[in-house]
């Protein structure tokens, strides 16, 4: 038994085998974007975009409920790709920016709203529809995204999965917000946040399970 010899053999053998297909995050991003577009497009087609979008868009909180998730999605997908390559430096704090802005909106709203209507406003009318829509619409892009990232080499699979979950969940939320007519930060920060959290958790579990190599 000569272990050195077999290692040399292995090197020869590996050198003789063809190089694996390139791992291109651009392709993954394109795939994710296409799937998100299809999911949201179908959703808008069936349930419609809010009819007063043009006038509502003038309100800062209406913009915020699309723009903050969008920002979160872009940051998270960037980090998910970065964490799919060994040796990169992963800086997570940018994820906190939209979250803090959301919390700021909530606190601001606290000051304005009457004591009695606080709970009613936070619970809203469509909380369940919101949670269900966002999680269901996220399922396919998340699943396919995990499969595509298997070609990468995540050295922290659960983290990469969670980041992908945040990205997909937030991306779907940004689109869902164009349908949703509940404009109180008390509602959307709570429920959108919860929905994105659920998708992120699923992403973490899937990553832990399927992004190992």
């Amino acid at each position, binding site marked *: 038994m000569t*272990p*050195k010899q*077999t*290692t040399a053999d*292995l*090197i*020869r053998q*590996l*050198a*003789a*085998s*063809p*190089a*694996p*297909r*390139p*791992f291109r995050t651009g392709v993954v991003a394109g795939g994710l974007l296409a799937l998100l577009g299809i999911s949201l497009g179908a959703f808008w087609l069936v349930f419609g975009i809010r009819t007063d979008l043009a006038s509502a868009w003038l309100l800062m909180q209406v913009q915020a409920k699309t723009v903050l998730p969008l920002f979160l999605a872009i940051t998270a997908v960037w980090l998910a790709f970065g964490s*799919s*390559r*060994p*040796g*990169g430096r992963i800086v997570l704090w940018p994820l906190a920016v939209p979250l803090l802005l959301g919390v700021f909106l909530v606190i601001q709203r606290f000051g304005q709203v009457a004591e009695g209507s606080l709970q009613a406003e936070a619970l809203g009318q469509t909380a369940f529809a919101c949670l269900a829509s966002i999680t269901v619409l996220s399922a396919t892009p998340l699943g396919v995204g995990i499969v595509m990232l298997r*070609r*990468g*080499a995540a*050295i922290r699979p659960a983290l990469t999965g969670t980041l992908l979950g945040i990205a997909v969940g937030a991306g779907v939320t940004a689109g869902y917000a164009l349908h949703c007519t509940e404009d109180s930060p008390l509602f959307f920060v709570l429920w959108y946040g919860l929905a994105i959290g659920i998708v992120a958790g699923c992403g973490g579990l899937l990553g832990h399970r399927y992004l190992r*190599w």
Partner: protein
Amino acid sequence: MTAALAFTPSCDWAARSGSVRLMQPRVEVRLQQDKLWETLLARANDGDGAAFARFLGAVTPTLRAVIRRRGEALPADQHEDILQDVLLAIHLKRQTWRRDAPVRPWLYALARYKVVDAFRKRGASINLPIEDFADVLPEENAATPLSSRDADVMLGLIDARSASLVRAVALDGKSAEEAGETVGLTAAAARVALHRAMRRLSDVAERMMK
């Protein structure tokens, strides 16, 4: 100075200098080497098998050293298996290296993931209850390079009087004064001699680590 303290600082120092040597050889040499590795891997990813063979050959000694140093919990004959796991992973995941990124952090992160994984797998497959290890588990930062055999070898490389001083103080747990008496030195002289012996041992350890 207690006996334990007398020996550990130099052990730590030796261990640290070993890892510094491994991760950071002299800067210019290292930069050259990085450049070579990067060129080789870039060509390998374009389909140049010979370049890939050279790349793997070039990184193997480093990987082997890391595995040997981390892998004292496992029998030495498994180290080569783990090395082969890492080499295979480098092949499978080589396209995750970005050409504009330095290759060394990529390589080390990948190798570390695979080595940890390999140890975990083997730890699970021999399936020994952890209680059996409870009282022999090494400390987190236990100085690794000085097993008692290594110590004997190293003590053989310095002069006999210093060696007997070190042996008495560090290995047998006597005080510097007691040790000095046995070789006919005053307490102060014994301490100075001991200090110099330790420094020489550190140099020896460093040379052995190369």
